[in-house]
């Protein structure tokens, strides 16, 4: 029965059937299937399929976002039934869009993939003041800080956030990963961030490599 439900959840997420994904997730709980099993055997594979379709240009952002909504419909329900720390037990990530920028589609997609793969993401949102990132890093002590920007002028905010962490003696305890349209590996080196990811898959690969996953 669990196999059938998992298969149905995968299809619901891949096809972006939001309500159905939620209903099916509830059915797994009703059937006493451990929620983590559903995450690992249905939701994660579903998002891998969705990512693959995007890479092959079978899916574009509209389909990705609908699938992401379906993923979260199921995931948020399952998360409430997991032991504390079980969802997102791999590592803690603070993620957000830098100060001055309001574009958050890329950041949200990265967050989806990371949460699907067991990372606990503290989403700071968009246009996040530099001081807020510094405070959050000091408070939460995440292993990773992920910064996103789509706009060229706000690349400066990225640089200043890294500098602020340095000034507050927080830089050493956190890996800073950057991404977004105008960003490059050269820019990453220039601002002394740790990694530039061109897409969510590269970001996931890097994070996994850092924690030995």
């Amino acid at each position: 029965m669990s196999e059938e439900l998992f298969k149905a959840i995968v299809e619901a997420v891949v096809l972006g059937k939001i309500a159905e994904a939620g209903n099916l997730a509830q059915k797994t709980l009703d059937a006493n299937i451990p929620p983590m099993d559903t995450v690992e055997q249905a939701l994660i594979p579903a998002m891998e399929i969705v990512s693959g379709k995007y890479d092959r240009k079978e899916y574009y952002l509209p389909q990705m976002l609908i699938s992401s909504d379906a993923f979260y419909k199921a995931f948020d329900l399952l998360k409430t039934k997991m032991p504390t720390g079980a969802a997102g037990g791999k590592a803690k990530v603070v993620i957000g869009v830098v100060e001055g920028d309001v574009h958050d589609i890329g950041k949200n997609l990265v967050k989806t993939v990371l949460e699907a793969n067991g990372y606990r993401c503290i989403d700071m949102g968009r246009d996040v003041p530099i001081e807020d990132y510094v405070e959050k890093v000091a408070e939460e002590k995440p292993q990773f800080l992920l910064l996103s920007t789509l706009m060229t002028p706000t690349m400066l905010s990225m640089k200043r956030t890294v500098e602020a962490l340095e000034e507050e003696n927080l830089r050493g305890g956190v890996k800073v990963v950057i991404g977004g349209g105008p960003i490059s590996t050269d820019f990453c080196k220039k601002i002394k961030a740790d990694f530039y990811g061109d897409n969510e898959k590269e970001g996931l690969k890097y994070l996994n490599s850092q924690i030995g996953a």
Partner: protein
Amino acid sequence: MAAMTPIERVVASITKKTPDRVPVILYFQSAVQHDLKELDYTWEEALNHPRKLFQAIERQYTYWGADNFFLPVDFRVEGEALGSKVTYKLKCGEGYRMGVVTEWAVNDKSDLDKLTVPDPTKDKRMSVTLEVIRRLAKKYPQVPIAGFVNGPPDTASDVYVGRYPGIFVEMINDPDWVLRLFDKCAETSIAFAKAMIEAGAAAIATVEGGMIDEAISPDQYLKFVVPGHKKIREAINVPYVYHQCENATPFFDIIVNEIKPAVVAFHDSVDLKWAKEKYGDKVVLAGNVSASKAGASLMDGTPEDVLREAKKCIEIGMPGGSFWLTAGCEVHHACKPENIKALVQAAKEYGVYK
């Protein structure tokens, strides 16, 4: 060949005649901040006052040396006219704050039915733009004025509380609603464009900033992006100058053959040689010195880098005419002033037709 005025030069390039040199056309958007700094104006005061905005805009020709004027220089005019609220809080360096939408006109999908196309002569910021165009046309009749309208999807993201993420989702869930929203934005752009033309604009420029190659498919572009732009282009009697952000390559055919603008301006991610070979006889090509990504010559390079890159663009684009030298994206405030000057210099140095 005798030296032409900027308007003669631009008209020659559009009408398949040979100009004296390659026109250098600047989408001078947030780079106007360099002028605001010189004039000691904030974004908010300049965009809301005709005299101050005029002083900033006229420098595009008198100081920077462009072959055009380009205004309005921010993207929020139409969204604000449709009822969204703009607050000047977006940090953009040197203590400046640009406008960003903080309250949206459409909070529920049913709000779309309440939207009305604004009267540009009565809307605050549209009427400021019109007054500046009138003053520019009177003082500088030799310089073509490009009036700017946002692409309908970009205006829609300023009007709908869901912004682009919400629009993308509704493209799947409720495509007819999205098309109606885009149509309302296109109607707004048409009203604004016509008013700018009446005030003295010689061309209408536009941009597709959110509907990019990484976001939507060519089929989705055809369905959602084309109708609004086609409607705008058909409604105006001046050249339509179309800029597609990021990699326009997957959409180029659609843009040239369906929207049919007079000019296609594109990002440095497009191979200019490819574009010239395939479309050089159908449309004026405008490109494409790098401006927007890390390492871009206009932003991070030296004037020599800009001259070098611009020279390559000119060598590819200028044979046979129908080519404008431009930045690959808007000229933004992180583009160094000396590099903007180098771009203009490149056209004069390397772009003379013999």
